[in-house]
């Protein structure tokens, strides 16, 4: 573990509502640069909601409301002068359900570059190649970049979505169960990838797989019913949690 920890994201008493339904209440936690932060917790506890608040994806949901602070590099992203488009470029996201666009493999990865105004073909081609390599997909697709992305397998599609997110050089990467639809080999690949990526990014990953959380994350947050129950270094959470309920959840003794 590095001696100097830089705080990348900081949630301060952050709450979130879908209409009258409170999905997150009073979350306060710091997320560090060059580290993987795992979020675990039972289904429906607000993991995705928390993730989708960091790039303000939840803005799109009618009747939703946020309260409290979510700081990115010390600046509250919910302030009115924040450029949401720029925020979303800086905070990349891999969705819970992999969502390649019905375009070619190449165009999928190039999409983010193009919408950000990059026209230089050589640059785009080089960037697409680099992103696909970073996402450990290049070897499998380099001869068929012009094929429709829907022809890829589920695991390849998920890595394509990762490559697509990497292409625009985000600072933070939000991954919502990136390995939930993958076989063990593909999961391993994605995990190695995450390990590699944390050298450059702050990564937040939601997972239902306890072993996976223990393997890849440096910090782990345990959410339950919209509240942050416990947040600490992964080793601490998995060996000596301070709350009984955390231990019960991790060991699977929990309903």
């Amino acid at each position: 573990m590095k001696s100097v920890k830089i705080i990348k994201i900081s949630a301060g008493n952050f709450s979130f509502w879908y209409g009258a339904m409170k999905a997150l209440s009073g979350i306060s936690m710091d997320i560090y640069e060059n580290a993987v932060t795992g979020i675990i917790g039972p289904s429906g506890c607000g993991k995705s909601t928390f993730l989708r608040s960091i790039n303000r994806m939840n803005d799109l949901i009618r009747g939703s409301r946020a309260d409290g602070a979510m700081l990115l590099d010390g600046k509250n992203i919910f302030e009115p002068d924040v450029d949401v488009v720029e925020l979303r470029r800086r905070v990349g996201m891999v969705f819970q359900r992999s969502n390649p666009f019905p375009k070619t493999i190449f165009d999928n990865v190039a999409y983010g570059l193009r919408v950000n105004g990059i026209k230089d073909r050589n640059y785009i081609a080089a960037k697409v190649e680099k992103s696909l390599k970073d996402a450990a997909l290049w070897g499998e697709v380099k001869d068929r970049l012009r094929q429709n992305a829907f022809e890829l397998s589920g695991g390849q599609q998920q890595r394509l979505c990762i490559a697509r997110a990497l292409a625009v050089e985000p600072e933070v990467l939000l991954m919502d169960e990136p390995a939930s639809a993958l076989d063990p080999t593909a999961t391993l690949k994605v995990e190695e990838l995450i390990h590699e990526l944390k050298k450059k990014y702050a990564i937040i990953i939601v997972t239902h797989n306890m072993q996976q959380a223990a393997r890849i994350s440096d910090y782990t947050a345990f959410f339950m019913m919209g509240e942050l129950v416990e947040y600490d270094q992964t080793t601490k959470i998995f060996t000596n949690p301070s709350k009984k309920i955390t231990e019960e959840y991790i060991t699977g003794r929990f309903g």
Partner: protein
Amino acid sequence: MKAKQAEEIIGFLLLRLCMAVIVVILCVIFYDSITKGIGSVSWEFLTAMPKNGMTEGGIFPAITGTFLVTVITAVLAIPLGMGCAIYLNEYAADTMVTRLIRLSIRNLSGVPSIVYGLFGVVLFVQFMRFGTCLLSAGCTLGLMTLPWTITASEEALKNVPKAYREGALALGATKWQSIRTNVLPYAVPGMLTGTILGLARAAGETAPILFTGAAFFMPFLPESLFSQFMALPYHLYIMSTQHHAITKVRPLAYGTALVLIVLVFAMNFSAVVIRYHLRKVKKE
């Protein structure tokens, strides 16, 4: 068990019967117009002016007129309808007002065409001073087609998964960029399908053009947007009910009907082709 099976069989028979009735009716109409009309359809019929008080000659000006007026309809209804649908589906908040607007649009598609005709007279012919002409008739048909275009376009937009929009936004696309590059390309074929069906209906309408621009008889082609014009459906109406020698021109009327049916059929068929391609692309 037995009773259940019998019920099943009877149900299926009834459904088949409904289907058969429809097919038979369609076939009779087709058979009737083809057998009676095909005799009058010739190259000359399609390309010549009407002669001798429309008892001889062709229907070229009517074909041209219908073509031109449909083009005007399309020019008006397609961009306006698509724009409206994009606004309603992508931008407008889901409020009482939007819902009311949507409901009104749905209802407008059920308003009788003669009402549009009268409205066209008031708005385009008189108030905007276009006079009775191609432009007035095209605009009237355009108005009539709009509800269809809007509804079909909105459906097409709804069919594009939300994940495409979110995925684009998450990469730093603006809302309009995500719509233009990641929603519209997948919605346009569906939008066109609905629009073409609406246009086909407009091409076959008589009432909206009756007072707004269609001419009883014109031995020359329209010269500008402000000329009157002949149109297939109106020509057919005249030939079968208003002509001074109705029995004599009956074959010509059937010929006109056949041309009109083929035209509408061709438009609908192209809509089906587009939809078929759309399905194929989606499956890939």
